[in-house]
């Protein structure tokens, strides 16, 4: 068994590994690798044959947080300890680059027989100290939720750290369907310079315009996230009918969490 960094020529073999579990995931992974590259992705080989993959993606605009990406072992080689080996390898790589907190997104999908292709993975994460932080209901599709697990690698966590509130001028710039989902949308937002005579914060009306646009596209839900130190976002979100899902603690940095909200279009 050998772990090495993924090369371009490994792409087909990696996709085939994922395909042994889920065809849709394989398609999504291919698209993701083609769009975002294969940096920070590793493969596990057995007798020179690629039997699994795992990796991580640093999260920009955070204090060294990262997501675990595409972690699969070929179905033929499952339950032989290879998943554990590559996962420990990745955790070691994450420690080397001094990642502070690791997040994993995973589905709770079950087939008609009640079998979940992700159960083994969830057990692996929990075995390595990952804890469930958020469940976004019906995220991927109706009755298919997104679970986000996390593990903080810092040793001294001050739970009472207070972060200064900020009041930037936020404007929405795009509406998009979230990758790998059926009918779940999000709004892209950015911080701009405050125009003269205009408010800093977006309003409930701004959100409702976006929600109407999603309805026209036959969307089911709108998911949106914001840092926890922005006090002006809460009133308009609540007025526009968004509900609070939960927060990923210390996502951006110690004391600044990522708050998740959802609007159900029914």
């Amino acid at each position, binding site marked *: 068994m050998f772990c090495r960094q993924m090369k371009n020529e490994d792409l087909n073999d990696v996709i085939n590994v994922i395909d042994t579990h889920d065809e849709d995931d394989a398609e999504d992974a291919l698209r993701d690798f083609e769009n975002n590259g294969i940096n920070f992705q590793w493969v596990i080989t057995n007798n020179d044959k690629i039997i699994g993959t795992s990796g991580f993606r640093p999260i920009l605009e955070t204090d060294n947080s990262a997501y675990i990406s595409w972690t699969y072992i070929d179905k033929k080689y499952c339950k032989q300890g290879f998943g554990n080996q590559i996962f420990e390898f990745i955790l070691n790589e994450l420690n080397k680059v001094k990642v502070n907190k690791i997040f994993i997104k995973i589905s709770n999908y079950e087939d008609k027989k009640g079998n979940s292709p992700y159960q083994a993975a969830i057990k692996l994460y929990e075995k390595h100290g990952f804890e469930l932080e958020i469940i976004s209901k019906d995220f991927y599709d109706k009755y298919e939720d997104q679970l986000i697990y996390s593990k903080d690698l810092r040793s001294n966590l001050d739970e009472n750290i207070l972060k200064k509130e900020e009041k930037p001028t936020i404007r929405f710039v795009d509406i998009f369907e979230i990758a790998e989902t059926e009918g779940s949308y999000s709004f892209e937002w950015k911080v701009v310079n405050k125009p003269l005579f205009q408010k800093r914060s977006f309003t409930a009306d701004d959100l409702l315009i976006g929600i109407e646009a999603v309805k026209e596209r036959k969307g089911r839900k709108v998911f949106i996230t914001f840092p926890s130190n922005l*006090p002006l976002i809460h009133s308009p979100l609540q007025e526009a009918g968004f509900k*609070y*899902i939960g927060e990923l603690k210390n996502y951006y940095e110690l004391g600044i969490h990522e708050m998740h909200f*959802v609007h159900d279009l029914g």
Partner: protein
Amino acid sequence: MIPIKDDNPQINTPYATYLLIFLNIMIWLIVQNFGSGVQYEESICKFGLIPYSLIYEKALTTCLELNQFGYLSILSSMFLHGGWMHILGNLLFLWVFGGNVEDTMGSLRFICFYIFAGITAGIAQIITNIESIVPMIGASGAIGGVMGAYLILFPKVKVHILVPLFIIFWTFRVPAFAMLGYWIVLQIFDGLNSFGSSGGGIAFWAHIGGFFFGVITIHLFKDNELLHGHPYHGWKQKNDASSIWDNPKNKQK
């Protein structure tokens, strides 16, 4: 009763307050020659606000002859002072109260607010002393505006005041509404008593005019978004903005 600090946290760097303090000091040093000599005396005549000169455009004295700045003297007089205690006292008040008021409106708006408060103070003094040939100078009208605004914005916040008792100085913490309320009542009392006097001394009506400008117009100048969540704004304790999500009705089902 001298304020020395308050318990109000400074949220953003008060650039405008710093600039105004800097300008006042520079003008005191460069234009008014540290408050000494002919240059100092001439600066008061040239740039001070002389109601008689504005209204009647006549020069009865040498000082009035020097006063050629016209209506601009309403502005220029705001940046002149009569002595070290005058400038230090004014700038101390500006230091204590200005930064927090600036927090509520941003630096550019604060400068506009300050200037308009000073102009109002000047007009108030002119109206109550229309025949006066005594130059009016000082930032205290504009700073009165800042204090009036502070009273409306942060009435409950504690202000540390220095009170001289014989040779000893005591410090007390009093809520802003008490300190500023006492101050304005004193100004009004002294202002009423000043009617019929021959001129000179403290321009109480400038203080009063500036103060009430601040009280009335702060609602136009303040930025409610900047004030959102301020721990000391108003009379009631503010909840954390995100606490609305504690209500089960606002949570994902």
